[in-house]
C-alpha cells in the first residue's frame, strides 16, 4: 500500500545493539505501556468556567463540544459568574461589557453610559448571526447531547440565591471544588476560563 511514511528499513541500519540491552529496553517499554494503560483510557479534559459575559461564555462551550466530538471525557465546572451560562433564564440574556473592553471602538466614558452594554451585546449578536456562529443555547444543547458533564457549583448556586431547577435539564448540581479537583487531577488538559 502507501509507503509514504514507512520507517527506514532496518536492513540498512547499524545493528550495533547489545541483545541483552535491547531485551531490557523492550521489557521496560512493555512495563511502561501497561502502567500508561492502567486505569483510565482516553483523553480527559476539565474546564473551569468563571465568567458569565456574552463573549466569555463561548470559549468553554466551543472547546467542550469539540472535545466531545473527539470522544473525550469532558467536565466543565461552572462557578461564580460562569454559573449564568447554565442558568436557563440568564443564559439567554448574557451581556457584553462595553466598559473596560479595549476592543470596543468607543471611549470608556461613553461606554459607561446607560444602555451601552445592551448596544455592544446587540452588535456582537448580529456579528454572530451573520457569521453563522452557533448560539450559546445551541452549544449547551450540543454539549449535553454529546455527553459533556456541565457542572454547576453548589456553593455559588446558594451564594447567588439560584435554585437548582433554574438550570438547563442535564446540568449536574450538588458538586463543589473537590469534585472539580478530582476530575482535574485525572485530566490530561485543565483550562481555567
Amino acid at each position: 500500500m502507501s509507503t509514504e511514511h514507512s520507517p527506514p528499513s532496518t536492513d540498512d541500519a547499524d545493528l550495533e545493539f547489545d541483545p541483552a540491552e535491547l531485551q531490557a529496553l523492550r521489557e521496560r517499554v512493555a512495563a511502561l505501556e501497561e502502567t500508561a494503560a492502567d486505569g483510565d483510557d482516553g483523553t480527559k479534559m476539565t474546564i473551569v468556567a468563571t465568567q458569565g459575559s456574552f463573549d466569555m461564555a463561548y470559549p468553554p462551550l466551543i472547546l467542550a463540544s469539540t472535545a466531545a466530538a473527539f470522544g473525550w471525557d469532558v467536565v466543565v465546572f461552572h462557578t461564580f459568574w460562569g454559573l449564568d451560562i447554565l442558568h436557563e433564564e440568564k443564559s439567554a440574556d448574557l451581556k457584553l461589557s462595553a466598559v473596560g473592553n479595549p476592543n470596543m471602538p468607543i471611549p470608556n466614558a461613553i461606554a459607561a453610559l446607560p444602555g451601552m452594554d445592551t448596544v455592544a451585546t446587540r452588535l456582537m449578536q448580529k456579528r454572530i448571526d451573520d457569521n453563522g456562529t452557533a448560539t450559546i443555547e445551541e452549544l449547551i444543547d450540543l454539549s449535553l447531547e454529546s455527553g459533556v458533564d456541565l457542572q454547576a457549583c453548589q456553593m455559588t448556586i446558594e451564594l447567588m440565591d439560584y435554585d437548582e431547577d433554574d438550570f438547563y435539564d442535564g446540568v449536574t448540581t450538588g458538586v463543589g471544588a473537590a469534585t472539580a479537583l478530582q476530575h482535574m487531577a485525572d485530566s490530561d488538559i485543565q483550562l481555567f476560563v
Partner: protein
Amino acid sequence: MSSEYQTTETLDVTGQSCPMPVVKTKQAIDDLEAGDVLEVVATDSGSMSDIQGWAGGTDGVALLEQVADDDRYIHYVEKTGE
C-alpha cells in the same frame, strides 16, 4: 463531486462556523456503518484544518480527501470502525 468514493451520505454545514462542522460531522459519522463515506460540505475555511485535526485524533475514522472548491470546502470522511 468526487467519483473516487462511493459517498454514503452528504452533510451540509454551509454557512456554519466553528465548532459546528466538526461537531456535526461527528454526529453524522455516529449514524453510519463501518465502510461508509460521509461527504461534508462546508463554507468555513477553518474546517480544512479542523476536520483534519479531528479525524487524526479520533479512532474509527479516516480522512480520505479534502477539496477546496471556490468558497466551498468538501471533506470525505470514512467510518473505519466503531
